[in-house]
């Protein structure tokens, strides 16, 4: 039985599949997928999650807006958040971290990097 619940928010099915496949190597993790920020908020309202992994550039609601809303949500305000994005500039990283993200991973991603970051944040 999974001990932790992760929510992966990514509009690209290719990237989402890659992240989900990478996270399957952590048996303690149950992974739920969301297409964008709005879908993610619905899923966050429907249950308790232990970690959130989100892209920044998404339609309808982007990742940064999602992070700021999650930090105001009573149930999930303490949840560790990992941002995965193509934006590699230092100012983008600082902006995401200032909004409340705990880690920042730039694309192209390497599965071990994602796994290690999740393990570190969940203290697995």
């Amino acid at each position: 039985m999974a001990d932790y619940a992760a929510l992966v928010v990514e509009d690209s099915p290719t990237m989402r599949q890659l992240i989900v496949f990478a996270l399957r190597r952590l048996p303690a993790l149950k992974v739920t997928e969301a297409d964008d920020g709005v879908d993610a908020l619905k899923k966050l309202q429907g249950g308790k999650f232990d970690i959130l992994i989100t892209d920044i550039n998404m339609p309808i609601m982007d990742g940064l807006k999602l992070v700021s809303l999650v930090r105001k949500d009573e149930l999930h305000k303490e949840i560790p958040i990992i941002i995965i994005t193509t934006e590699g500039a230092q100012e983008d990283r600082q902006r995401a971290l200032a909004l409340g993200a705990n880690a920042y991973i730039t694309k192209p991603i390497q599965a071990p990097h994602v796994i290690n970051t999740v393990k570190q944040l969940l203290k697995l």
Partner: protein
Amino acid sequence: MSRDDEDGPNEAAAGHGKTSDGPENRIEESLAARQAFLQVFKRGEEFAEELMRENERLRYRVAELEKDMAGVEAQNQSYASRYVEIEQENNNLLNIYVATYQLHSTLDYDEVLRAITEVALNFIGAEIFTVTAVESTPSGGWEPRLLVAEGLDWETAAQVPVAPVAREVIATGVPHFVNELEGVEADLERPLVVVPLKIKELTIGVLSIYKFLQQKKLLASVDHELFTLLAGHAATAVFAAKLYTDSKRKLSTIQGFIDLVTSSSTSE
């Protein structure tokens, strides 16, 4: 230690409190004491020799263990580096599996092009790139047709002539790479990477990458594997999707024609 060892030569010489009167007795006692002392000394010498032999054996054993330890250490390092290699290979395979899965998960032409775009953007880290189809002309030559433009607007991309290096890739089917990416500026006339999209030996298009994401400093082994994958699978995925779309359109036309004929014959 034996009791004899505890009794020293002086005690033996003292005769354990016995009284001795004559010089002969004293000599005998003295000889006995000397004998006892010599025996103790001999036992000590034997004991020391035994200790030295044991010491030598232990030194040899330590040397052997150190040698074994070095072997185990080397084996550990070998396993560790193999583990890293396997992890890397697993990671590469995961990328390739997902990319292949996405390329072949649909027969929708636009979705296939989107999958190629996502692989180039998200897996390889390309920022500015185009995918161009190579279409045969009745004169026996070929002309380019832009399929994907990412990181630059469609009009600009459509006006970019096929770079000489891309022409060479189309002619030879051999990909072109610039491995060192750091500090390289985008130049639409000089793509950094050109990958032929091939069906067997026939090149039906090219993926040209003009700029990579700023965090991408060099092309890794997985990138080369992804280029090989795109070269083989993207072409067949595009080709199959195009055939499917064309046949669907033709089927729809034929169905419309059949419906028309059927309805007109029924009305007569």
